[in-house]
């Protein structure tokens, strides 16, 4: 199926579900939500920003329809239009046995970390995402191959989850899932994200083995406060031959004091590289003291941010985030065996009306291997 055919099918699915009559006597209820963001990114420190980033204008659109089939079953379909074209960001059934036992089956974003829940541009105050979750808007994207786990990570699979309130003020969440997982070609040294969204390689698992993951979170709830702490993990193989392993772990903390938020997350990914037939000619660095090449790469990422309302219409946000990569690199790579980025972001969003906002943010990139850069974002974002 070609890209345009797939786009037409997804659009027809959403329109058909939204347009079909809901019968109240069947207790079938349906609702619709959506968002739009148009962002312009400028890189004033480089004459042609496109050489180090996907700069200039990008649009992100999402249209979501959810239909409830009584109290224990619902279905959601979400259409997303962004840099990749038209994609199905969601297409799943939720089956609820109880609050403590729910099943999600279909195409969805598995639970990992705190940010993916707010990945929709209408739900966060900056135009782009924290570096660990970057999906194509960071500078030096090619050299770094994005962050740790691009958000939203959309995949086919099944998820078991639930929540239990020990009291009104203490909630425990859990989730466990099996999804297709990241992909790459044979003899890979890192994920190849295009294979996850390419019709040429089909939207199926590339190695017949699911990636497994889990998340557990504790939520302490007060009248005007909320503290959420979570741990996440995901792992499996990512190459067609099932030889190259990866594992991602993460910790997250969100503190809400009325309308002020402090958020922090840390992600770590260990990725096994294929050494190939001749590692000497393939890699920039030689073997270790034991005479063997280390096939593992460690990639760490974090962010910490504070978001607060400054006036009735203006919200402010400051963020500090970064990435660090440790391990051998291909000879062609501009990175070294220990490379890092630190990024400092200050931004504000102005409420125009309804749920429409203008977002303005400035980012200072401190690279260990390249000259420092500045990026400026100006966006119009809103919810439907």
């Amino acid at each position, binding site marked *: 199926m070609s890209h345009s055919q797939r786009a037409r099918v997804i659009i027809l699915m959403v329109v058909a579900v*939204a347009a079909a009559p809901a019968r109240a006597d069947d207790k079938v*209820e*349906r*609702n*619709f939500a959506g968002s739009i963001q148009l962002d312009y990114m400028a890189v004033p420190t480089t004459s042609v920003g496109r050489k180090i980033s996907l700069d200039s204008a990008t649009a992100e659109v999402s249209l979501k329809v959810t239909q*409830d089939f009584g109290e224990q079953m*619902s279905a959601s379909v979400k259409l997303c239009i962004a840099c990749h074209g038209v994609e199905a960001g969601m297409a799943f059934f939720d089956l*609820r046995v109880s*609050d403590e036992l729910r099943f999600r089956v279909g195409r969805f974003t598995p*639970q990992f970390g*705190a940010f993916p*829940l707010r990945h*929709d541009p*209408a*739900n966060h105050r900056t135009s782009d995402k924290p570096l660990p979750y970057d999906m194509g808007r960071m500078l030096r994207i090619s050299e770094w191959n994005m962050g740790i786990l691009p958000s939203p990570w959309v995949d086919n699979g099944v998820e078991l*989850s639930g*929540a239990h*309130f020990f009291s*009104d003020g203490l*909630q425990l*969440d859990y*989730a466990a899932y099996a999804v297709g997982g990241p992909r790459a070609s044979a003899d890979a040294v890192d994920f190849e994200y295009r294979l996850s969204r390419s019709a040429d390689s089909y939207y199926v698992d590339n190695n017949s083995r699911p990636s497994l993951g889990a998340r557990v*979170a504790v*939520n302490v*709830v007060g*009248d005007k*406060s*909320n503290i*959420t702490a*979570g741990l996440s993990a995901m792992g499996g193989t990512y190459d067609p031959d099932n030889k190259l392993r990866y594992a991602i772990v993460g910790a997250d903390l*969100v503190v*809400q*004091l*009325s*309308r*002020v938020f402090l958020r922090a997350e840390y992600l770590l990914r260990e990725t096994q590289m294929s050494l190939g037939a001749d590692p000497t000619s393939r890699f920039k660095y030689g073997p270790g003291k034991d005479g063997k090449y280390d096939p593992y790469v460690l990639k760490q990422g974090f962010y*910490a*941010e*504070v978001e*607060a*309302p*400054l*006036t*009735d219409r203006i919200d402010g946000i*400051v963020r*500090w985030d*970064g990435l*660090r990569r440790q391990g051998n690199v291909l000879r062609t790579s501009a990175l070294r065996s220990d490379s*890092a*980025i*630190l990024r400092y972001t200050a931004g504000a969003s102005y*409420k125009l009306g*309804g*749920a429409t*906002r203008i977002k303005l943010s400035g980012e200072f990139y*401190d*690279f*260990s*291997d390249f000259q420092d850069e500045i990026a400026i974002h100006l966006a119009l974002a809103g*919810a439907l």
Partner: protein
Amino acid sequence: MPQALRGVGRIPRSLVCLLVVAACVDTPRSLLSSSTPAPPDIQQACSVATTRCAHCHPIERVIVSRGMGVRKWQLYIEQMRLKPSSGISLNDADIIFRCLRFVEESCTDCKRGRS
């Protein structure tokens, strides 16, 4: 250690200071419009609703959805309650519904029955 990672210890302290300052200047926002006086219990309910809803998304997303009807608000609140780490207990869901029912019914210029 890469040059980029030096001097990072100062940053967390700066963030904590900003958090404290930001908390001091926090401007309350509410689901209630100033033109519709609400009884104290509704004000209390809407305070809880504002805190809970804003945990995951801007409160404006709730305000622009007025007019969808009370039944659909029940549906939405249940969907939101089931989101991971929503912090919305069954008791909170009732409180939020009391607020949103008032918001819905007091919205005189809302187009009714939209989906």
